[in-house]
């Protein structure tokens, strides 16, 4: 059967295997079917050789975190992320992946009011201790959140779906920092309820396309769009590829990770006493491997903390992967164990992570995480 994959993309893999150690699922299993090289080989077997779509082939595709750590490791530039997204889209269309309950679970993401209400409800249930641990939710879901208020129109701050419901305080910190650098901020709020990243991961590209088109219609042209969630930023920077139009490419070109943008616009940030902390930088995969702007996090944090320390695992995934930690708790846990060991070796006071999924997943293992914007805001305002 065809998986709808571009033959040249598929052939661009020479099976050299240099990707293997950069793949979190291969790292914890040692199993070729859980490696990028193995998955591409199976895509070829299915699409080119007529191999049947067995349970093990599906398992190989499903187990991918889609961290795309293999892409920067690939000397031939194989577009692995797009191959995997297309594979999942084809299989989801045929109802071989992304079962109904998953589709249903993703529905509320584009309805901010429902999400807020749901979060409020969850925060109450959480007090009763009835929320299962495997969901990996933060310990202290907010019951009430202050609304975000526009302060000008120099930049948009993309607020998104789950993050706005769970971690609006990160948006608030980010907005204060950007304002302190001398810019007026418009939070996107209901204008752009969801970026569609989780839907794209699940193979529901149709949903992502309609969310992308909605967002492009809603936001004023030319204004930079800052994103403080690495996963959302990566998805929005990919709209050009997803929709294939000049308009979408132009939109993607004005999407910036908030650290990336601030690194070039921080001249007017006040000079303050750095926080007396040793901070480890955890690079979210979609910041490091997909957007490839992770170095900016160091640039913006350096003046505001006593010491920045690098992890020794070359940016290997933490296992969060959007909904991955919920769908694949066992693999996600093993991958997280590696990350936690690396963090332990770095002996930090705090771990800075620029992606809500990573920080929730790591917090689930007791790692003290904080968003880089919260750290800078803390240094600037003196309060956490």
């Amino acid at each position, binding site marked *: 059967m065809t998986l709808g994959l571009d033959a040249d993309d598929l*052939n*661009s*893999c*020479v*099976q*050299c*295997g*240099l990707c*293997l*150690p950069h793949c979190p699922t291969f790292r914890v299993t*040692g*199993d*070729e*079917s859980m490696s990028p090289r*193995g998955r591409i*080989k*199976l895509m070829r*077997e299915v699409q080119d*050789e*007529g*191999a*049947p779509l*067995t*349970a*093990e*082939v599906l398992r*190989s595709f499903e187990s991918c975190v889609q961290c795309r750590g293999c892409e920067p*490791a*690939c*000397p*031939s*530039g*194989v577009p692995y992320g797009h191959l995997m997204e297309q594979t999942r889209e084809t299989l989801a269309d045929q109802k071989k992946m992304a079962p109904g309950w998953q589709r249903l679970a993703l529905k509320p993401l584009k309805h901010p009011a429902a999400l807020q209400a749901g979060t409020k409800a969850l925060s109450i249930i959480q007090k009763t201790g009835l929320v299962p641990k495997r969901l990996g939710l933060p310990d202290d879901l907010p019951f009430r959140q202050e609304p975000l208020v526009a302060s000008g129109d120099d930049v948009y701050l993309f607020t998104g779906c789950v993050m706005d419901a769970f971690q609006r305080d990160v948006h608030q910190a980010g907005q204060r920092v950007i304002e302190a650098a001398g810019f007026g901020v418009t939070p996107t709020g209901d204008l752009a309820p969801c970026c569609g990243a989780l839907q794209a991961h699940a193979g529901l590209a149709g949903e992502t396309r309609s969310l992308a088109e909605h967002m492009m219609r809603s936001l004023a042209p030319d204004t930079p769009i800052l994103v403080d969630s690495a996963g959302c930023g990566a998805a929005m920077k990919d709209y050009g590829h997803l929709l294939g139009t000049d308009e979408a490419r132009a939109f993607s070109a004005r999407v910036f990770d908030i650290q990336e943008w601030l690194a070039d616009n921080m001249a007017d940030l006040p000079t303050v006493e750095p926080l007396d902390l040793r901070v480890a930088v955890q690079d979210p995969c979609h910041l490091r491997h997909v957007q490839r702007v992770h170095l900016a996090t160091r640039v913006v944090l350096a003046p505001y903390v006593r010491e920045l320390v690098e992890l*020794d695992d070359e940016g290997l995934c933490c296992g969060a992967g959007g909904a991955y930690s919920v769908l694949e708790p066992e693999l996600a846990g093993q991958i997280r164990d590696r990350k936690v060991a690396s963090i332990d070796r770095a002996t930090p006071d705090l771990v800075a992570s620029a992606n809500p999924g990573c920080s929730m997943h790591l917090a689930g293992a007791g790692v003290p995480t904080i968003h880089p914007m919260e750290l800078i805001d803390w240094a600037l305002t003196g309060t956490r």
Partner: protein
Amino acid sequence: MASFLKSAASAGSAAYDSFRRLPGRKFEPAETDQLVLDLQAALTEDRVRNDSAQRALMSHDASVFDGGNAGPVCYPETTDEVVAIMKIAERHDRAVVPRGAGTGLAGGAIPLGDAPVVIAVTKMNRVLEIDEDNGIAWVEPGVINLDLTNHLKPHGYHFAPDPSSQQVCTIGGNVANNSGGPHCLAYGVTNAHIMALEVVSPAGDVLQLGGLDPEPLGLDLRGVFVGSEGTLGVTTKVAVKLTRNRPGVRTLLLSFSSVRDAANTVSGVIAAGVVPAAMEVMDARITEAVENYVHAGYPTDAAAVLLAEVDGLESGVDIDADQIRAIGLANNATDVRLAADDTERALLWKGRKTAFGAIAQIAPDYYLHDTVVPRSALADVLEEVYAIADRNDLLIMNVFHAGDGNLHPLIIFDGRDPGVLDRVHQAGAEIITASLDAGGVLSGEHGIGVEKQKFMSRMFTDDDLDHQNRVRQAFDPVCRANPGKVMPMGHSCADIQQLRAVPRDVWG
């Protein structure tokens, strides 16, 4: 004669001829037979895989050769489990194929013949012990080469052999292939860094070969095993020698307007008595592909670049670096650049070490050759290699360990072009002939595998090969371990076995 042998022997030849298109391999479920049940009982169910996807993946390594159907794929975690696998395979009269990361380039890890049991050691990946006093570490075979070096960093040591695939290849694979790498120029190849091995023989015996003493007594069976490409058994523990990190390192990048000038510089440096840690040459085409990936500032307008590294005491490395610079300039170097810091050095090496993978930017298939010629013949043989490419209407790039004369002509092509495989084979044979005629050898570091079997008799006499066969049979009387590899058909273990065939079960 064991049935697996005959089929393995002919399959090895078929794999060589077919590249990635071995006919007859089918993606179909295998029955869960008694062999699988026995293996699952000895390991665990989830570590013995018999599904079609898993077995299809095992038909490949990083070479262009396609194996046949793999049998059950085992992921042992202990020596005892490897012993059990060997004994069960023997009971079921099935061959075994050891596998590390599957990054070999000579087809050493592909299954041949009647669905051999694959022993994948990727889960045996612990560093067991670091003995700084004696400069030795005991590791399991599935430890990744670069992981070991990173693990040793806080102790001030590294593992010296650094194949280009070091970020993924395993120590077990390094032992099997006696792997080299850029820095083996000064430090020697894997064999020089293995003190002792624990191996499981094809009969399931656990042997320790070599020892931690500087001069172990008895025959040096460790030396026999290193480089035996999985034909003598499976490595389960390795005592590696640790190499001290040197305080001073200088990395130079020299540009040339001809490959000959670069090759002559290499000969000149060695003749002057300098022993650099590494000397690597890349020609213009490969440099362009590499630069496109790493953006390390490799010159894309030079006909060849020479990456030279010296290490040692701080006070000495500048003298060596100056001498290399002077020899380069005397051989018409157009530019000499010194890496400013560790970041720049790392980036330059990243480019060199990912060169082979980078070629898919140009064509989807590559065939990487591996021969060694005397340094003094480098320039002449290289010119001949380019002429061979022209004669066969092929594109060849050259990237090689110049310091020890180890050539890696890289033929790139699109396997979908009709007739191209014949020309690729023809060019390969001509390159080997040119290297041997210049006084060189068949393989520098990739091994023989299924790739160079046909050429073994050009290198060795019948008596040489017969004695190699006898050594192999001392370990493995029926050639159960990785059959169909290394020894050429006319002299193979299989054929000798056939001549002296003893009916199965004759010994009970």
